């Protein structure tokens, strides 16, 4: 079967991501920002799909659909949109922006120029159908400890949220 992962699709999704990312920081209305974020994240999951990582792509969609949902609710409940649309935006920090942009750009150019030496010159032979099983065995085998630590961290966060939200337990 002909590969679907053609450069056309890569450029398409990359363009969606870049435009979405720019819109997240330039829209005055926070709801529009959240929607642009969704577009960017969905495009990102498509790029995961092109990298033969279907499990990561699927999980990305599931998690971020729920995550952005909660973000949306926060925006609706906590931000007064009428006021924030009229407010002067405080993201116009040109000096810091230019420095960060140049650093990141320099990094990209460096990787692009030196990439041949850093990365292996051929793609890893990945069998797409095993992707989920591979991730499972890795998470519960090789990276068991870090996985458990991460889940403990989440548990602490849940307990913290309950303690903060409830005055009387």
């Amino acid at each position, binding site marked *: 079967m002909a590969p679907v992962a053609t450069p056309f699709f890569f450029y398409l999704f990359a363009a969606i991501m870049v435009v979405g990312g720019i819109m997240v920081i330039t829209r005055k209305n926070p709801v529009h920002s959240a929607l642009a974020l969704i577009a960017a994240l969905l495009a990102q999951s498509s790029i995961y799909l092109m990298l033969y990582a279907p499990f990561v792509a699927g999980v990305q969609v*599931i998690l971020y659909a729920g995550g952005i*949902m909660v973000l949306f609710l926060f925006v609706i409940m906590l931000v007064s949109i009428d006021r924030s649309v009229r407010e002067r935006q405080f993201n116009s920090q040109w000096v810091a922006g230019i420095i960060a942009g140049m650093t990141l750009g320099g990094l990209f150019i460096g990787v692009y120029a030196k990439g041949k030496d850093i990365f292996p010159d051929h793609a890893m032979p990945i069998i797409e159908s095993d992707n989920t099983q591979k991730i499972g065995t890795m998470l519960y085998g090789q990276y068991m400890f870090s996985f458990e630590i991460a889940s403990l961290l989440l548990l602490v966060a849940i307990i913290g949220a309950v303690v903060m939200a409830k005055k009387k337990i």
Partner: protein
Amino acid sequence: MHEIIQYILSYLTSDKTPGAAGNMFWALVYIMLVFAGLSVAVIAMNWLERKILAHMQVRLGPMRVGPHGLLQPIADAIKLLLKEDIMPAEADGFIFWVAPFLVVLAAFTVFVVVPFGPTHAVTDMNIGILFMLGVSSLSVLGIVMAGWASNSHYPLIGALRSSAQMVSYEVAMGLAVVSAILMTSLNAEGTGTLSMIGIVQAQMAQGEWFIFKFFPLGLIAFFIFAVSMVAETNRAPFDLAEAESELTAGFHTEYSGFRWSLFFLAEYSAMIAVSSIAVTLWLGGWLRPFPNWLSGGTWDQIFNFFPGVTFLFFAALCFFNTVRMPKHPLFRVQTIGLAGFGVVLGLIGLVLLYPPVSFRIQDIFWFSAKVTGFMYLYIWYRGTFPRYRFDQLMQIGWKVLLPLGLGVLMLTASVALIQEYLIKTWHL
């Protein structure tokens, strides 16, 4: 011309999905077929829901447009398309415009992986079930966008309710799904699968539907899914997002005409989508009843008759009611129409009885029959259960279904491990 026919006939005997064969043309044909079939199913569901609800409440339901109101959904569709499309002046234009399309997109895209048969799916992904859950959870975004963009109170409250409800019930739903996926790993090779076709094949290989596996664990997981899927699709008794008595119409109060009909379409196709997840995971997908126990040529022959006989039965019902129609001249058109409908159904039934067709259509028939059962359940719930209060809804989700789901998941894993241990040590 001859070559084209040969090409089509050669595909009819294929044993791969169009996606697996990498055939763009057949994938397109399948997408069209699924889309058309879904639209017809939504139309049929619209009529059936009104009829069945009416009969449950000892009414007649639609009777005027066509014989027994058969043309009512078409009349409704024409009305909706001709209606003025209003956008509130204070609404957020772009989001208001894009929300119904997002909902429809999410509801229809999931059908790419729904396995109507071992070869009758647009494609088979190895993350099939994840894809279905992920894409169908995108529809809640559309609902919240619609509620927020309407810039009005009822839609906003409906949208907030719907989002809270979906986010809570997705957790219980996910746990139930995981416990079913765990069962797929009890094959001979010992690896599970997330692919929709693979899940049904695992049930075939293990010789039992997952609803009966590790009784009652599979049944409880199925029950959790069956409750949370009603909540996920915002249907009665969990239809708080569009509770008529409190919120007029909930998140789509400000929508009218074509855009409202998109929400309607999305709601019904989402119902069919979650039902097909339930059928695939627990009820054996396209498998006919007792594929292992009642196997062999004779039983295959007998079960091959089912699709055709079902349609012939419906045709017979039509003819029976044609005879019962009032003999008044004003009813002549309706009587002829009903007889014509019966003839069409009968012809479909005869085509389905033709052996190659019936062999090929078998799996689609059983899958659709099971999904139809779920559709009837949806209507039945709506006709019998009163609507829950919102705190009760949250209580069921978080305090009943979630712990139950966790318990079932752990027990399933333990039983599976014990079974594997017993098989490995004592070769039971």
